[in-house]
């Protein structure tokens, strides 16, 4: 049997590579155009403090977008990430306030708070994964349920108010910027971005994620424990959303049950703008990272040029619609 009679010659493979490369280039181009546009309207946009601010806004979005990318590549969706951000943030705030009042030393206090936040993300992620794999709920419904539950739990735990009482060290960690822009949490985010890109592209974990999204039946037939892998993917998304909550807490020094509301919109926008196909199996992590950068840059640009914050969600929603529309036009037909 021969594959030599391929209708697609080898130059086509090179063309595809070129297109993929171009996708990154296009995203960077869009980003540059937006920066130019907003800078033209308000020159303050093109400044170090503004860039540092965008980076702070970008970090939680990109953390959620990374988790979302693993999930979407496996042909799922995680709507709970915004609520997990909020729940992890208030949990961390409550634990830290309690430990602080009990007189524990700041290092231990902050570590315990961080662990509690991660545990919250892990638990919600595991619940998502188990609901989807073993209870057989579709990802949309399972994560819609946990989205509501997590948001409600944040309100119950806090009585609806912001939780302050962080030791000074928290604000120091979250806001001490080296070179005027690089804080320790931002550094951690950069490391996570690099690891996520590497694992998505070059590891067995990433390969199985794409395989399940592309054809879960084939993945199962090849001996992959699909359910187990999906549970890991949703757990990862939960933990990353919780880290986003921790990031926001370090930045503000307080946890609000309302923070993270609508965060899933930004995370999904980042992923689909970055070319992650909602049909699963396709898309690069670097695209989602650039997508998160574009999403945040648009949002802070809108604020800086004086657009009312209430319009932000509408703009993000439009970005999603446009990105999905463009993908739909360019997407290769899936074979049967």
């Amino acid at each position: 049997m021969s594959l030599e009679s391929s209708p697609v010659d080898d130059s086509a493979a090179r063309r595809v590579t070129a297109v993929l490369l171009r996708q990154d280039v296009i995203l960077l181009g869009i980003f540059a155009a937006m920066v130019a546009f907003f800078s033209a309207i308000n020159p303050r946009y093109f400044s170090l403090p503004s860039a540092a601010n965008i980076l702070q806004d970008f970090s939680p979005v990109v953390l959620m977008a990374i988790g979302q990318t693993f999930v979407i590549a496996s042909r799922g969706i995680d709507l709970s990430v915004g609520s997990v951000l909020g729940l992890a943030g208030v949990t961390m705030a409550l634990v830290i306030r309690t430990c602080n009042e009990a007189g524990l030393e700041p290092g231990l206090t902050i570590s315990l708070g961080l662990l509690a936040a991660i545990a919250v993300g892990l638990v919600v992620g595991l619940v998502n994964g188990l609901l989807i794999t073993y209870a057989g709920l579709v990802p949309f419904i399972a994560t819609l349920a946990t989205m509501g539950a997590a948001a409600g739990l944040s309100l119950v735990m806090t009585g609806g108010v912001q939780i302050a009482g962080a030791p000074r060290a928290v604000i120091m960690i979250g806001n001490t910027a080296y070179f005027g822009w690089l804080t320790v949490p931002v550094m951690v985010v950069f490391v996570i971005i690099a690891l996520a890109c590497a694992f998505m592209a070059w590891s067995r974990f990433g390969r199985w994620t794409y395989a399940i999204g592309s054809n879960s039946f084939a993945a199962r037939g090849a001996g992959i424990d699909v359910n187990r892998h999906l549970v890991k993917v949703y757990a990862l998304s939960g933990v990353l959303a919780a880290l986003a909550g921790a990031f926001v807490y370090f930045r503000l020094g307080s946890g609000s049950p309302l923070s993270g509301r609508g965060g899933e919109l930004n995370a999904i926008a980042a992923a689909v703008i970055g070319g992650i196909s909602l049909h699963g199996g396709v898309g690069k992590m670097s695209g989602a990272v650039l997508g998160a950068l574009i999403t945040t840059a648009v949002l802070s640009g809108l604020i800086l040029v004086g657009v009312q914050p209430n319009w932000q969600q509408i703009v993000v929603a439009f970005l999603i619609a446009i990105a999905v529309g463009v993908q739909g036009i360019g997407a290769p037909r899936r074979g049967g």
Partner: protein
Amino acid sequence: MTAPLYEVRNVGKRYGSVVALQDVSFTLNAGEVVGLVGDNGAGKSTLVKILSGAHEPDTGDILLDGTRRNWHSPHDALQAGIETLYQDSGIAPDLTVAANVFLGREILKKGWLGRFGFLDEKKMREDARRELERVGIAVPSATRAVAKLSGGQRQAVAIGRAVAWANKVIILDEPTNHLGARQAGEVLQVIRQARDKGLGVVFISHTLPHVFEVTDRTVVLRLGKVVADRSTDSFTHDSLLKAITGLK
């Protein structure tokens, strides 16, 4: 007489109140191609799922090399050397040829990168090409996404993958479906090669000429029971059709 390579004895399987298989026995010898035919709903898919480890039978035994075995998942059967190619679904279209050949059996890099699950793409690329060539499939580019290949080429990759990995049994569910005459002929040629390597091949098909062309023995299922099991030579096209439909 030595034990058959692969055997199920008196298996039964119900889905709720529906009896899918009833007291079915099936044997497969090394170096033999057995055709499994039957009308829709005859129980072919259920038997395939039991043979491949996807479903566990309610009653009866599974024996490999004369030893009683239990498959709790397809993974167990794969480990034991039983490869299954399901109808139209053996391939992840968005992955490359090499990634598909090594799906579930990825080779990791040596050293600490491998401990973190990083893939040795170069070795998989080279080995995929070699393995596919070994079973008679020439691949122009192992790095191309399978979605970019034609239907016949996709099927070639799927079958090549199964034959390359199987070391005892290979189960092919409708492998010539949707293929042109020449491509189907190539698939049958790969099946003969697999048999000559000493594998046992289960060939499920609705296309009776292909059954006559490639199988040594034919098992006919009707309404969940085996109604015929004998040398393919002993059937005529008519008698096989009658066995399948139950019409006189």
